[in-house]
């Protein structure tokens, strides 16, 4: 009896210990309810129940699965869609951080005479532009590739939909980062244009500076088109800087070439502006004409309505007329019959009188 009691009491005490420990866990985790959420975090309660179940299983003697499946499970996700997608995201994040980090320097107006160390040279700015564009292009390439892969891979419909949605999310993210970049760029271009406008007094100096805003103005912030200007500008500025930091020491041929290019670009811009204005005028005319048409059509509608009414009235009248004619014919016929009858009666009466008299 004693030996029986012993394991029993041990089990009981074990059980009691388990219960008190779990109660302790429960109280701890209940204390950590996050009130601001209005929802209760019972993760710790869950972990406590895991512990109780483990100890209960041990007591009853259920063996736990050996963790040998772990290795197989872990090795499955190594190759696959998700790590690649995550890589693309980390790249885009790197680009975003880089842009944000240098944003202040990039955008800073900085006068030309200041020799502040943190001020970025135009060269560096263009370098950043170029790098950022190449980067963005590679990222969108990677996304496209992933999409093709996902389509080709044979998997369930749900996984396909999931992967498609994941790629959409990544694209939206990339677009957001591109927007950051283009905002930055737009500010820079605007600053250049303002600078140019303000300082029209020194033509040669600003004909050079004018190069940079001109190519930038005419293109929208699309990646393919701005590539041209980016490659142009570094070349120009590179040449200029190579020749020395003083603006007046440009060779006359270069000045002439630049001036010619300048003129060409100005004329191009002007023609574009004219065309746009013409188109605008035409569209306004078209809209006005359309308004007139609409008005006329409405007017005609009322007229057609009145005509319709008249026609309906006319048909009614004609119908009535037909009825009247039919009646008249009937009457006529009836009248004739009566006349005939009367004449026949008269003749018969005459004959009768004649016969009677003679």
């Amino acid at each position, binding site marked *: 009896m004693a030996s029986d009691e012993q394991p029993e009491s041990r089990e009981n005490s074990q059980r009691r210990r388990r219960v008190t420990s779990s109660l302790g866990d429960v109280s701890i985790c209940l204390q950590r309810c996050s009130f*601001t959420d*209005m*929802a209760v975090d019972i*993760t710790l309660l869950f972990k406590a129940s895991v512990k109780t179940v483990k100890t209960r299983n041990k007591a009853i003697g259920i063996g736990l699965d050996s963790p040998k499946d772990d290795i197989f499970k872990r090795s499955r996700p190594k190759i696959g869609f998700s790590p690649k997608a995550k890589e693309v995201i980390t790249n*885009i994040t790197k680009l975003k951080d880089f842009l944000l980090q240098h944003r202040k320097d990039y955008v800073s107006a900085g006068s030309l005479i200041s020799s502040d160390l943190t001020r970025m040279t135009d060269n560096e700015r263009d370098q950043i532009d170029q790098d950022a564009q190449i980067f963005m292009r590679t990222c969108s390439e990677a996304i496209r590739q992933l999409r093709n892969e996902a389509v080709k891979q044979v998997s369930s419909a749900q*996984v396909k939909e*999931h992967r498609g949605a994941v790629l959409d999310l*990544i694209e939206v*993210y990339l677009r957001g980062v591109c927007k*950051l970049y283009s905002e930055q760029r737009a500010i820079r271009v605007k600053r250049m244009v303002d600078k140019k406008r303000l300082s029209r007094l020194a033509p040669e100096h600003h004909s050079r500076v004018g190069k940079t805003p001109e190519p930038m103005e005419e293109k929208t912030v699309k990646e393919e088109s701005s590539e041209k200007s980016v490659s142009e500008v570094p070349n120009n500025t590179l040449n200029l800087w190579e020749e020395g930091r003083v603006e007046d020491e440009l060779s006359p041929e270069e000045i002439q070439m630049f001036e010619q290019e300048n003129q060409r670009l100005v004329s191009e811009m002007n023609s574009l502006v004219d065309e746009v204005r013409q188109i605008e005028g035409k569209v306004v005319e078209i809209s006005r004409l359309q308004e007139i048409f609409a008005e006329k059509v409405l007017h005609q509608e009322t007229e057609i309505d009145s005509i319709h009414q008249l026609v309906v009235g006319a048909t009614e009248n004609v119908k009535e007329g037909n009825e009247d004619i039919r009646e008249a014919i009937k009457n006529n016929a009836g009248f004739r019959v009566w006349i005939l009858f009367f004449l026949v009666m008269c003749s018969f009466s005459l004959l009768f009188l004649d016969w009677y008299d003679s």
Partner: protein
Amino acid sequence: MAASVREKQTVALKRMLNFNAPPLKNSAAEPVWKVLIYDRFGQDIISPLLTVKELRDMGITLHLLLHSDRDPIPEVPAIFFVMPTEENIDRICQDLRNQLYESYYMNFISAISRSKLEDIASAALAANAVTQVTKVYDQYLNFITLEDDMFTLCHQNKELISTTDTDMEAIMDTIVDSLFCFFVTLGAVPIIRCPRGNAAEMVAVKLDKKLRENLRDARNSLFTGDNMAAGQFSFQRPLFVLADRNVDMATPLHHTWTYQALIHDVLDYQLNRVVMEEGAGGDPSPAGARPKKKNRKTYDLTGADRFWQKHKGSPFPEVAESGLEGEDEGAISMLSDNTAKLTSAVSSLPELLEKKRLIDLHTNVATAVLDHIKSRKLDVYFEYEEKLMSKSTLDKSLLDIISDPDAGTPEDKMRLFLIYYITAPQVPSEYKTALLDAGCDLSPLNYIKQWKAFTKMAATPANYGNSGVKPMVMNSGSQLVMEGVKNLVLKQHETDDYRYFDPKMLRGSESSIPRNKNPFQEAIVFVVGGGNYIEYQNLVDYAKFKQGKKVVYGCSELSNAGQFIKQLSQLGQK
């Protein structure tokens, strides 16, 4: 309640979808993708609040029903939003065993019991997936918010009627649980008033007990802490009035005349979604599934639709004439201004398209409603019932309307007759033959007879008179509810018949506790049994009439007249 219940629930859902962390305001944050898995209850809760596009923006790539066939999607965290029932728990354990996803975030709509938690724990242990279960939460969101000031509890299983005691207990427990979740989300402990002697009283007693238990446990009460500081700008507690459906059986049968109530009555309108068929009839399409037939159109009537918000309570003719024309004119004027300026036209094009879509939507819906009205002569019914309920003189005899073959379906005639039966003191019995000729089913009548006898015994006269609000507004049927609210909110005279519960009080007896003498600023009216849009509209109009008071309407289920008649006939056949 500085923020409405709907906003609070939406915020809670968004936080849950963000892995239970408050969502960041940073717009260019890294996308994190996840899969959302819900059961039917979760679906009903989420669908009026978040659109599919909003779910996508939050990073949800797939949203699936719990009990559908789901394929394993590796390396993806999954957020579960389910009720803690046996079958859901079993399915979750099965998912854990099949290793469908990388990590699991469990969110239970109402509190889960310890034993079920242990079931999940053992399944996780068996599948060696304990580390994958990242977070487990009790969300306390077991109610459906349809409008800023309207909520309902259960949307499933509306056809089940049972009168056994155990079923009644179970139903009341679910109602109490949902109401408890509602108050937790609201973050306020109300003062409860309820009439005596019916289901409302039983619910009130249970709710009071549950709130009291929770408050007493000061360590883990859900109502203390930052909740109160953040959410309570008004230092008053709301008033919670419980009403029972038995008090007024005529209003659910009433033919209505306001836009939203008409849509609910005549078309298939569930969870803020209208389904109109061009061909054969069908079920409402659940969120996330594509409609099966090509000629069935679904429209979502949401809070973002300004026309809907402005006109959902106005009488139908007003909506048809002034509303739609006004919208049309607005759209046309926008168009004519913009022909002069190209760039502004391009930028306001999406706005114009959206307006056009809304106008088309409302035109279609209004046309469908109008067709129904014309074919069933609903205006005749409406006028007649108004007269019946306000006890004014009737110019047409009831027999004429019932025997008129093209004035409405047999159901309409039954409704009219039931309202007459309820409101008239004595009813001659020659109508039975006329009703049978018209093809009506007489079983609801049996139940109403029983109910009338019962209420006569309880000696509470049903008062259907007007209260001085404009006669164009239908307020006759829910007068008693409004009387209760009016009196309690203004404290003009104590409705002593009503019991008083204050869960914050420590002592349980009710006779000697000092009652809160201040007039209440917010009231929540809850109907145990079927609720409908007519009562909601009346309450909204009433709240507008009394400046500064906020009224929220809730019901345990939202049934239109057809469903109500079905329930009555089921009860009558027993």
